[in-house]
């Protein structure tokens, strides 16, 4: 039986792993690769100690540090966690679809989040045929073409700034009366002459033929349905936590599926800890995930010590 299993190998999971490794804890780190959502973060200028970087570069630095500690994540897709006498069982599948199952005394859930979907007509049909949830990945493919960004927060602002450099026309649609997010990004985007911010806009449908041709939105002010013609649509409307494997009857998830933790990263179930974007922390930031991973690992160490007494 392992002392601990960390589920997720991005910012929170990796910082937890470094602390567990330094304390000589017998643990497993599960995740497809180091990086997760951090890797597709685009420009990162707010991570203390590094003035200017991007998600990919920062991920590379995390990887280097993991290597230094001989930490290698196991590529496992976790599908279930269950309670047993004296601990828990973590189950899932590996990349060859073979069953995986390990016992552990504690679990640190750091499974991150995935982009939220619009759930409107055309979204599934035109996924990767004009619709993308990753501007950093697919944005450059739309160089020279008009595009729309849907969302009102930092990710949408960053996507807007990136696409403004590549495209002749960029529409940014937000359902809010104003863009929300870092003031510096809002001001920067407002300066771009080829960017048009459409407020109070509820996207209704994405249409096209073989590929996306445009979208329809409801103007909440005038109650009119309007249409814009674009080749690409980038959706940045927030994230939803990757916590389906956590049983609902454990009652440690909130309404949107985030793991409820106290300030020490503990849940209501002794031995279960959570950190990063899958937790109910309001602010989802790389620096916060790193700190939460650290707290959760120290709490897990304290829990393991208490078991030995």
């Amino acid at each position, binding site marked *: 039986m392992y002392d601990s299993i960390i589920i997720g190998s991005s910012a929170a999971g990796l910082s937890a792993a470094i602390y567990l490794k330094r304390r000589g804890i017998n643990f497993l780190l599960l995740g*497809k*690769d180091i*990086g997760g959502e951090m*890797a*597709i973060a*685009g420009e990162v200028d707010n991570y203390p100690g590094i003035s200017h970087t*991007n*998600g*990919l570069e920062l*991920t590379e630095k995390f990887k280097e540090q993991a290597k230094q500690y001989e930490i290698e994540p196991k*590529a496992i897709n976790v599908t279930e966690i269950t309670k047993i006498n004296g601990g828990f069982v973590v189950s899932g599948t590996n*990349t*060859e*679809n073979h069953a995986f199952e390990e016992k552990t005394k504690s679990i640190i859930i750091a499974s991150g989040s995935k982009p939220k979907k619009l759930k409107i007509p055309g979204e599934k049909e035109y996924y*990767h*045929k*004009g619709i*993308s949830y*990753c501007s*950093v*990945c*697919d*944005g*450059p*493919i*739309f*160089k020279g073409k008009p595009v729309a960004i849907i969302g009102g927060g930092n990710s949408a602002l960053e996507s807007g700034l990136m696409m403004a450099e590549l495209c002749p026309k960029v529409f940014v649609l937000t359902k809010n009366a104003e863009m929300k997010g870092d003031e510096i990004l809002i001001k920067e985007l407002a300066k771009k002459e080829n960017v048009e911010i459409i407020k109070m806009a509820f996207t209704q449908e994405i249409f096209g033929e*073989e*590929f996306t041709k445009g979208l329809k939105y409801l103007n909440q002010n005038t109650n009119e349905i309007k249409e814009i013609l674009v080749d*690409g649509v980038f959706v940045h409307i927030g994230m939803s936590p990757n916590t389906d494997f956590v049983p609902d009857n454990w009652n440690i998830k909130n309404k949107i599926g985030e793991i409820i933790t106290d300030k020490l990263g503990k849940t209501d179930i002794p031995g279960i800890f959570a950190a990063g974007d899958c937790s109910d922390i309001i602010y989802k930031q790389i620096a916060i995930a790193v700190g939460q991973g650290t707290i959760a690992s120290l709490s897990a160490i304290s829990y393991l010590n208490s078991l030995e007494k």
Partner: protein
Amino acid sequence: MKKAIIYVTTYCPYCHMAKEYLIKKGVVLEEKNVETDLKARDEMIQKSGQMGVPVLDIEGKIIVGFSQEEIEKALEE
């Protein structure tokens, strides 16, 4: 030894992961950056029928996205 073409953009993390994985598997890799090479962009869209990266062409088998499982299958064929 298997040969593959990988279509990428410069900062796409999944492209880097796929590339690293194929190199680890000993695949002889030709990289095409669809950000700078418009001919390669059209070729990728024509081959895969879509506009997301990475796209892998492993000796005719087209894989969209980074999936270790699908890469393994294509390498076994």
